[in-house]
């Protein structure tokens, strides 16, 4: 019991809600995290966020990281997602978008807020000219209702939430090709067609498949569950088929 309390406290201080980096491999020598991560690697740099700050490590020599910089971001930081030359940093109140033009000294370009919720725990993923964020208003995160937020990032200086879908208790998310997979802890695993990227269409709900986060990876969906990991075959992207549960 003591251990559980300790872990809970550490987990809270170290990350509150969480999220990570994901999407199709941009840098082939770097791995892929879920959408609930606090570490992400872009090129020769490792970025990590605590609840208020971003730290930057130079890993040009991968065995010998060098701690280079620390930047104040804001309050309630939970997740970091890298896409191309941008960092999407999710907090309890806003998504911060940072430019990596100078990778050692990222600068803020803009922030994305939602009209729908006051506070949220928001994993974010970005794809070309759109970003998807799950905005969860559970007891821990506060706020009114939960949504999947679709954000137009064509004009990165002025991201605009252009569509929202009601959700129950959304957590991590990720895309593979033209399909977006969303973990909803009470509704199950949801599959959306994002051929029209600004208008996700629900094509399938796997009610009994509950997950907290996921990584689409090489035609597989690796899902983090409360028991361990479920792996699905997504060769047919709209119809995940479970391969195995690893506990």
């Amino acid at each position: 019991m003591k251990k559980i309390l300790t872990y809970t406290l550490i987990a809270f201080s170290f990350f509150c809600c969480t999220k990570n980096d994901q999407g199709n491999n941009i840098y082939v020598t770097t791995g892929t995290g879920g959408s609930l991560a606090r570490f992400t690697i872009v090129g020769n740099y490792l970025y990590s966020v605590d609840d208020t700050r971003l730290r930057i490590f130079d890993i040009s020599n991968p065995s010998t990281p060098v701690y280079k910089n620390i930047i104040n971001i804001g309050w309630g930081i939970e997740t970091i997602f890298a896409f191309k030359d941008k960092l999407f940093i999710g907090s309890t109140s806003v998504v911060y978008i940072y430019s990596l033009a100078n990778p050692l000294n990222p600068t803020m370009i803009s922030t994305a807020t939602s009209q729908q919720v006051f506070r949220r725990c928001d994993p974010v993923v970005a794809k070309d000219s759109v970003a998807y964020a799950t905005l969860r208003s559970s007891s821990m995160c506060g706020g009114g209702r939960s949504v999947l937020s679709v954000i137009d990032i064509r004009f990165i200086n002025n991201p605009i939430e252009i569509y929202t879908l009601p959700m129950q208790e959304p957590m991590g998310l990720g895309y593979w090709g033209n399909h977006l997979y969303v973990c909803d802890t009470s509704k199950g695993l949801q599959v959306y067609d994002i051929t029209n990227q600004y208008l996700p269409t629900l094509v399938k709900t796997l009610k009994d498949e509950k997950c907290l986060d996921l990584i689409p990876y090489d035609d597989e969906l690796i899902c983090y569950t409360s028991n361990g990991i479920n792996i699905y075959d997504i060769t047919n992207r709209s119809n995940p088929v479970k391969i195995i549960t690893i506990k």
Partner: protein
Amino acid sequence: MRKIFLAIIIISLAFACTRRWNWINKDNKGYGYVPIYANKNDIVQINFQTSRPTMNPGKIYAYGNYIFQNDMGTGIHVIDNTNKLQPVKTGFINIPYNFEMAIKDSFLYANNLVDLVVFDLHNPTNPKVVNRINGVFPMQSIQNYPSESDVYFECVDSTKGVVIGWKKQTTVNRNCYR
């Protein structure tokens, strides 16, 4: 005069954050917090073990033919996914107080409480620690006082080890308040 003024400022600063109420036996909320300490030497004990069941599933990471899953606060499970129909756990990297990871060029970066540790994963069945940056992830909020404010707590004694959490209890040596 200047010295007195300086002394007043220093004293004020010393009391600004954590007020000490040794002389007041005032009941506050009927409970307080006691630090949970861990031994510094135990925290840095990292080793590679045989595979084991996942206790408190944490974040996931994919790299090459391998999948990694954090076991919250204890380390990282290594899963070989070369045979996609039959992925297998091949081992467990025991890393106390680990929650985060990322991999590049077969080097794994993981937090070990407040340290950043680097593992060589070229042989994923035998990861080796190759580097460590001490104290780069300080957890001020946990290491100095409990997260709840307006509450009594037992002052941190750094000679007892590293604070890794706080335990709520009714009988507390109420020598600190925040």
